[in-house]
C-alpha cells in the first residue's frame, strides 16, 4: 500500500481511538449524573444529602451518615499516613544509604501492588479482633482507618519521594554551604520546594481512601447510623453502592447512582486542589 495512504489511514485510526476513548469516559460521567438526577429531583437534594435515615423499602433516602463515614475514615487515614509516608519518603530520597534504599524501595512497590482485598482480609482477621479488645464489635471506623492507612501509605511514599528527589541539587548545596545542617536543609529548603508534589501525593492518597470499597465492607460493619465514636460501625458511600446495587430497582437504583454522583463530586474537588497547586507552582517558576 502507498505510504501516503497508510499515513492518512493511521491518522484516522488513532483519531478514532482517541474519540472512542474520550467518548467512553465522558459517557461514564454523563451516565452517572443522568441516572442520579431523578433521585435528586424526587427526594430533594437537601433531604438526600442531610437525611440520616436510609430505608429503601419505605422510600427514605438520606446519606449523611455515609458521607460522614467516608469522610471520617479518609481523614483518619490521612492524619496517620501523611507523617509516616512523608517521613519514609525523606528517608528514601535524602537520608538512607544506597543499600537500605535498594531494600526499602522494592518493599514499598510490593505494598503498592498488594490487592486491597488482601488488606481487607488481614484487617478482618487481625485488626478487627484487636479493636474488639478495646470495645464494641471490632467492626468499626478505627479498624477501617488502620487498614486504609496501610493501603494509602505506599501511594503517599512513592509520589512524595519522586517530588523530593526532583528538587535541584543546587538548592540543597546552597543551604549546606551556608552552614545549615542536613536536617535544616531538608526542612527549610527541600520540603518547601517539593511542596506541590507532596500535596499531590496526599490528595491522591485521599482519593484512593475515599474510593476503596470491598476492604471497607469487610472491616467497617456497614451499619447505617450516626457514628459517634471511632469504635462505632459505619458505612461508606462506596460500600453503600456495592452492597445494594444488585437488588436495587427504580428510585432506589437512582439513589445509588446519586450516591455515585456525590463520590464523583468529592473526587473532582480533590483533583482540583492538586491541579490548582501544580498550576500555581508552575506560575511561580
Amino acid at each position, binding site marked *: 500500500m502507498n*505510504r*501516503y495512504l*497508510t499515513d492518512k489511514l*493511521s*491518522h484516522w*485510526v*488513532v*483519531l*478514532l*481511538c*482517541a474519540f*472512542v476513548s*474520550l467518548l467512553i*469516559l*465522558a*459517557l*461514564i460521567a454523563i*451516565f*452517572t449524573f443522568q*441516572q442520579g438526577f431523578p433521585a435528586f429531583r424526587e427526594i430533594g437534594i437537601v433531604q438526600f444529602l442531610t437525611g440520616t435515615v436510609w430505608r429503601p423499602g419505605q422510600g427514605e433516602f438520606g446519606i449523611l451518615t455515609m458521607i460522614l463515614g467516608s469522610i471520617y475514615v479518609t481523614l483518619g487515614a490521612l492524619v496517620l499516613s501523611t507523617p*509516616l509516608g512523608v*517521613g*519514609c519518603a525523606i*528517608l528514601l530520597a535524602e*537520608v538512607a544509604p544506597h543499600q537500605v534504599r535498594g531494600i526499602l524501595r*522494592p*518493599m*514499598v512497590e*510490593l*505494598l503498592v*501492588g*498488594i*490487592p*486491597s*482485598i*488482601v488488606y481487607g*482480609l*488481614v484487617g478482618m*482477621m487481625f485488626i478487627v479482633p484487636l479493636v474488639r479488645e478495646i470495645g464494641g464489635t471490632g467492626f468499626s471506623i478505627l479498624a477501617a482507618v488502620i487498614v486504609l492507612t*496501610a493501603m494509602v*501509605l505506599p501511594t503517599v511514599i512513592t509520589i512524595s519521594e519522586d517530588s523530593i528527589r526532583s528538587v535541584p541539587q543546587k538548592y540543597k548545596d546552597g543551604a549546606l554551604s551556608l552552614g545549615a*545542617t*542536613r*536536617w535544616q536543609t531538608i526542612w527549610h529548603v527541600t520540603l518547601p520546594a517539593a511542596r506541590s508534589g507532596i500535596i499531590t501525593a496526599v490528595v491522591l492518597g485521599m482519593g484512593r481512601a*475515599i*474510593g476503596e*470499597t*470491598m476492604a471497607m*465492607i*469487610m472491616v467497617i460493619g456497614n451499619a447505617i447510623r450516626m457514628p459517634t465514636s471511632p469504635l462505632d460501625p459505619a458505612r461508606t458511600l*462506596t460500600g453503600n453502592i*456495592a452492597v445494594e446495587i444488585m437488588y436495587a430497582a427504580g428510585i432506589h437504583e437512582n439513589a*445509588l447512582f446519586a450516591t*455515585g454522583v456525590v*463520590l*464523583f463530586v468529592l*473526587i*473532582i474537588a*480533590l*483533583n482540583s486542589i492538586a491541579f490548582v497547586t501544580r498550576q500555581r507552582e508552575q506560575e511561580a517558576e
Partner: protein
Amino acid sequence: MRLSPKTTQKLAWVAIWGSGVITIFILLFIVGYVFANGVSSLSWDFLFMQPAGGLSGEGGISTVIVCTIYLVLLTIAIVTPLGVGAAIYLSEYASDNWITRLARYGVETLAGVPSIIFGLFGFALFVTVLHFNFSILSGSLTLACLLLPTMICVTEESIKIVPRAQREASLALGATKWQTIRHVVLPAALPGIITGIILCVGRAVGETACLYVTLGGSAAMPTSLLSGGRTLSLHLYYLAMDTRAFDKAMATGVILILIIIIINTLTNWLSQRYMARVRGT
C-alpha cells in the same frame, strides 16, 4: 527551651528512620500474616481442583484461575489498542488547544474515580441494558473502562520522553508522519508502554469492587465469554465474607501476593534494561 540544630537533627533522624521501620514492619506483617495462615492450605490439589462450595470452602481454585486469565487477557486486548491509539493521537496529532487540555483533565480525573462508579456504569449498561448479564464480557468491558485512563496516561508519558530531534531526523529523511511514529517513536516508547500494560495486568488481578457487580461470582468453569465467573480477588472476598473459609481465603491471598511479586520483578527488570539502553550501554 530551644534545641540546638544538632539535637534537632538527631530527633528528626529518629523520626524519619522510625517511619521507615514502621513501613517495613507493616509490609512484613501483612505478607507474613497471609503466608503464615495460608501456606498450610496450599497444595497442587488446591491449585488444580474446582471449588466445591460448602461451608468449609472445599476444593481448590482451578476455575477461578482460568476465569482470571480469560478476564485479564480480554481486558488487555481491549484496553491496549484503544489506550495506545488515543495516547498517540493526543501527543502526536492533537494541537494544544482547550479541547486537548479538557480531554487531558478529564482523563486524569477519571483515573482517580472510584472503581465502584465504573462498576455502577458497567452494571447498568453492560449487564442490564445490553443484556450481557453477569459475564466475563461485562466484567472485561467494565475493567477496560476503568484501566483506560491509566493506559492513556502511561503511554503519553513514555511517548513524551522520546526526544524531538529523533522525530525531526526521521521526517527530514522524507518519512511520513506515520512512518516516523511507527519506526521511531513507538520503538523508543515501547518499554514504557509495556510497563503500562503490566501495571494494568496487576490492577486487573487486584480489582474487586467493579467486578463484584458485573462478573456474577459463579464458581463453575467458564465456557464462553458470556458465562459468569470470579477472579482470584473476588474469590477471596466470597471465601471470607460468604463461605467464611478463612484458611482458603488466606491461601488465595498467598497466590495473589506471589503474582504481584512476579509482576513487580518483571517491571523492574524491564525498566532497568530500558535505562541501560537509554544510557547506550
